């Protein structure tokens, strides 16, 4: 470790494999200060802005929120809260396009800004050294800080580690072209950044703190060196400019010469890497109690009149930012809207909707002109065959074999891709940048990665399904065995009882007498239940509910009827017939209702009625549909001039029989009308049915308690 520090103090660093030197284009924005923007009219705050899970909502539509107020919370450690970036009223909580290459919608909170920018009550901490580690970690978690470099890993998890940390590396490399957000932040807020680093120092207690910064930011280097003068432990390491020095593993390699093994995290080698913007957010959160509600965003590209870095509130729509910087859209371009890229030119993605909000990880909005980036304007790819030049593997910072990967990705050979360590690819785009055949290699890798992840999900799901299937089989087997056991026991009990009785009575006559006595007792009990007031009342109400249901159905039907009143004649005829059916069905139900009260099958009483009712309902729908169908068919067949609906006759048993209908309809229209009526009716029926069902369910509950009595008697 001493030798590492010795090397660093001499200004000697290691080198990672590969890398490229694309045109930097940072001069567009690096010389201008960070601009404060007027408040936008509306903020769109996605619930999830980082890796992990989204929290639970704390607010409702119409709530007034203050600046810095938490909008979500969660007990899950991987979830990070989001906060209101300014004061206002929540106008909606709905799905909206978010900053994701898919352009898919996710749940967002819409805040109508009131313009007052009123803060919630804050607790400013003047001396963070007095806070305990847990207090600081809680503050960081509550402030919703997620890594601001790109991946958005929740910071409080990264800083809450047990093992000894050798190196805390602050990533200030900012190696991607165009982006100067961190550069400007370091120039303007170096003191606050150093406070943040000291807070991290207190949490992690590393042996050394290294700030890795590329040499193309002289002003930032000077500012940092000045701010860190008083702290021995912190050393500013000025690194040669090369893309992608800012990659986590690459930066570790350059600074310490250590390589992080595939599949492990830097923490396993005693190294923690934090982004410089995250350090600023930490100092804001711990010292000033300001949650993560704003960040520096580089607005750049030649399509902008005034490219500049701005302080953007999280949730600000990109369109607002573009308007502020004078976005010149090329109207006569081939594509309908000029491309806007979120992130840098190498790793960013074009956004399809300008209402996409700024989130915790968005560091740059790039609006290139046609001359600057022609490939962004025309959708056709200039890809040609791979010529096996090998330049891609020369520049790959992860020392992979990009062309091998590309072939396997095209062939969808997932096994081979995993063998070639596809998941060590950091999506830096260096291979695609140097490719003379203009193969969009990174795109192939991204597709393959997503496919493999999905395949893994499917495998997991299949495994789960298998377990559940096996468990179900075992359960069914057990139930079967249990049932057989029960039957056996019951049979045995019956046998014993039989033999006992015959032994007791001695003769057949006594058994007969016994049976007679039992029958008598049962009769008595039956009479009792019939005369029992509660039972009769119960029965009455059952009838009532039936009547009520019928009334409700009739009402609904009348409503439907009114709607199509212009078609009165056909309609009336039909409704009448269906009403007739209903009446007959209701009549059917009633006897069933009354019948079993005194009969022996009391327990099955209510369920019988219900089933009857359901079948009746279904029957009606079927009849209505059949009527409509028959009409249409008849019309087709005969094309006759007249049509009349014959009354339907229904047999009393379950199978409703519809007599064939003589159709004499004049034109198509009538058939269609009939179909519409049938539909409306079935809808009304469905409504009535649910009502009736509810009432019946209530009834059922009461009845169940009543049923227990007779059941007990029978079992005796």
């Amino acid at each position, binding site marked *: 470790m001493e030798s590492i520090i010795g090397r660093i103090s001499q200004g000697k660093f290691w080198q990672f494999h590969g890398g490229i030197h*694309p*045109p930097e284009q940072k001069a567009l924005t690096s010389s201008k200060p960070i601009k404060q923007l007027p408040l936008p009219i509306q903020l769109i705050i996605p619930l999830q802005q980082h890796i992990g899970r989204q929290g639970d909502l704390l607010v409702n539509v119409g709530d007034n929120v203050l600046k810095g107020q938490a909008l979500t919370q969660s007990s899950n450690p991987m979830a990070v809260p989001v906060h209101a970036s300014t004061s206002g009223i929540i106008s909606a909580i709905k799905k909206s396009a*978010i900053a*994701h*290459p*898919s352009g*898919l919608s*996710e749940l967002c909170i819409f805040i109508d800004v009131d313009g007052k920018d009123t803060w919630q009550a804050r607790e400013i901490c003047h001396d963070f050294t007095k806070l305990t580690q847990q207090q600081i970690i809680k503050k960081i978690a509550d402030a919703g800080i997620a890594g601001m470099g790109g991946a958005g890993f929740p910071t409080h998890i990264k800083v809450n580690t047990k093992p000894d940390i050798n190196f805390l590396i602050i990533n200030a490399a900012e190696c991607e*072209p165009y982006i100067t957000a961190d550069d400007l932040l370091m120039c303007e807020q170096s003191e606050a950044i150093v406070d943040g680093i000291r807070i991290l120092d207190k949490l992690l207690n590393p042996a050394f703190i290294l700030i890795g910064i590329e040499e193309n930011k002289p002003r930032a280097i000077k500012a940092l060196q000045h701010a860190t003068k008083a702290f021995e432990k912190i050393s500013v390491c000025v690194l040669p400019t090369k893309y992608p020095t800012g990659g986590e593993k690459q930066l570790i390699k350059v600074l310490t010469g250590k390589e992080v093994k595939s599949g492990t995290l830097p923490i396993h080698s005693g190294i923690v890497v934090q982004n410089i913007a995250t350090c600023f957010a930490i100092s804001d959160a711990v010292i000033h109690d300001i949650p993560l509600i704003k960040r520096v965003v580089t607005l750049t590209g030649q399509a902008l009149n005034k490219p500049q870095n701005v302080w953007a509130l999280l949730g600000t729509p990109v369109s607002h930012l573009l308007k502020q910087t004078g976005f010149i859209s090329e109207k006569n371009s081939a594509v309908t809207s000029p*491309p806007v*890229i979120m992130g840098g*030119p*190498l790793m*960013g*993605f*074009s956004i399809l909707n300008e209402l996409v909000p700024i989130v915790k990880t968005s560091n740059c909005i790039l609006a290139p002109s046609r001359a600057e*980036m*022609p*490939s*962004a304007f*025309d*959708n056709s*790819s200039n*890809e040609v065959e791979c010529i096996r030049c090998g330049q891609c593997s020369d520049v790959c910072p992860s020392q992979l074999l990009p062309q091998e990967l590309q072939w396997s990705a095209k062939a969808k050979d997932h096994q081979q891709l995993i063998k070639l360590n596809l998941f060590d690819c950091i999506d830096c785009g260096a291979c*695609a*940048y140097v490719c003379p055949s*203009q193969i*969009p290699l990174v*795109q*192939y890798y*991204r*597709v393959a990665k*997503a*496919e493999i992840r*999905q395949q893994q*999900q*499917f495998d997991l*799901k*299949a*495994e*789960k*399904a*298998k377990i*559940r*299937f*096996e*468990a*179900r*089989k075992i359960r069914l087997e057990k139930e079967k065995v249990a049932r057989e056991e029960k039957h056996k026991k019951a049979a045995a009990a019956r046998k014993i009882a039989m033999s006992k009785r015959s032994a007791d009575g001695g003769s057949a006559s006594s058994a007969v007498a016994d049976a007679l006595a039992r029958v008598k007792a049962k009769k008595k009990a039956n009479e009792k239940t019939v005369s029992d007031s509660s039972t009769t009342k119960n029965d009455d109400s059952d009838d009532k509910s039936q009547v009520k249901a019928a009334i409700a159905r009739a009402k609904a039907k009348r409503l439907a009827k009114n709607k199509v009143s212009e078609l009165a004649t056909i309609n009336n005829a039909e409704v009448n017939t269906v009403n007739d059916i209903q009446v007959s069905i209701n009549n059917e139900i009633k006897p069933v209702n009354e019948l079993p009260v005194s009969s022996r099958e009391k327990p099955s009483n209510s369920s019988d009625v219900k089933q009857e009712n*359901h079948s009746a309902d*279904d029957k009606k729908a079927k009849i209505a549909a059949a009527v409509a169908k028959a009409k249409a068919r008849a019309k087709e067949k005969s094309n006759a001039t007249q049509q009349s609906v014959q009354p339907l006759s229904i047999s009393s048993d379950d199978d409703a029989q519809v007599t064939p209908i003589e159709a004499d309809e004049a034109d198509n229209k009538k058939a269609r009308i009939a179909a519409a009526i049938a539909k409306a009716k079935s809808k009304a029926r*469905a409504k009535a049915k*649910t009502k009736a*069902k509810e009432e019946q*369910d209530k009834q*059922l509950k009461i009845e169940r308690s009543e049923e227990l009595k007779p059941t007990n008697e029978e079992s005796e």
Partner: protein
Amino acid sequence: MNILIAILVLGLIAAFFGALLGYAAIRFHVEGDPIVEQLDALLPQTQCGQCGYPGCKPYAEAVANGEAINKCAPGGDDTIKKIANLLGVDVEALDENHDQDSTLGNGPTVAFIIEEDCIGCTKCIQACPVDAILGAAKQMHTIIIDECTGCDLCVAPCPVDCIEMRPIPETIQNWQWDLNKIAVKQLD
């Protein structure tokens, strides 16, 4: 005499090896047929029964006993290829009788119960091979989406036709890059 010694020696050797083999057979005994387990691992575990067997494991057993390898519709050509690879037989096209029906053609689906129409008959619960339906007699049922394999075995038994197969909605988590849709950006 010599011949007797030879017989004795050879006999002893035979007895020794016999004992060794017998011991090994007991010591290294494998429960079940390992090839069935391997086949089962290749199958998609939808337990849909489209192959004509009551689940993936029974089909795996049948394949191990010489059943055709091209009967798994949800697995498709990929699964057939893998099975062919494992068994060392030729790849066959998916059996037409077991072809994927059109409802399953557009990506994975899950069953959905239209809850206001459900009458609580429990028929779908009995049909579900993975117990992914929650409900009780005369109570509304619902599907546990995360557990549903999309086998559509519950659709047919429903007396009120309130179950339908719906495609899984696309979210950020399961979104797939589509190169044909997205223009590729590159800095020159």
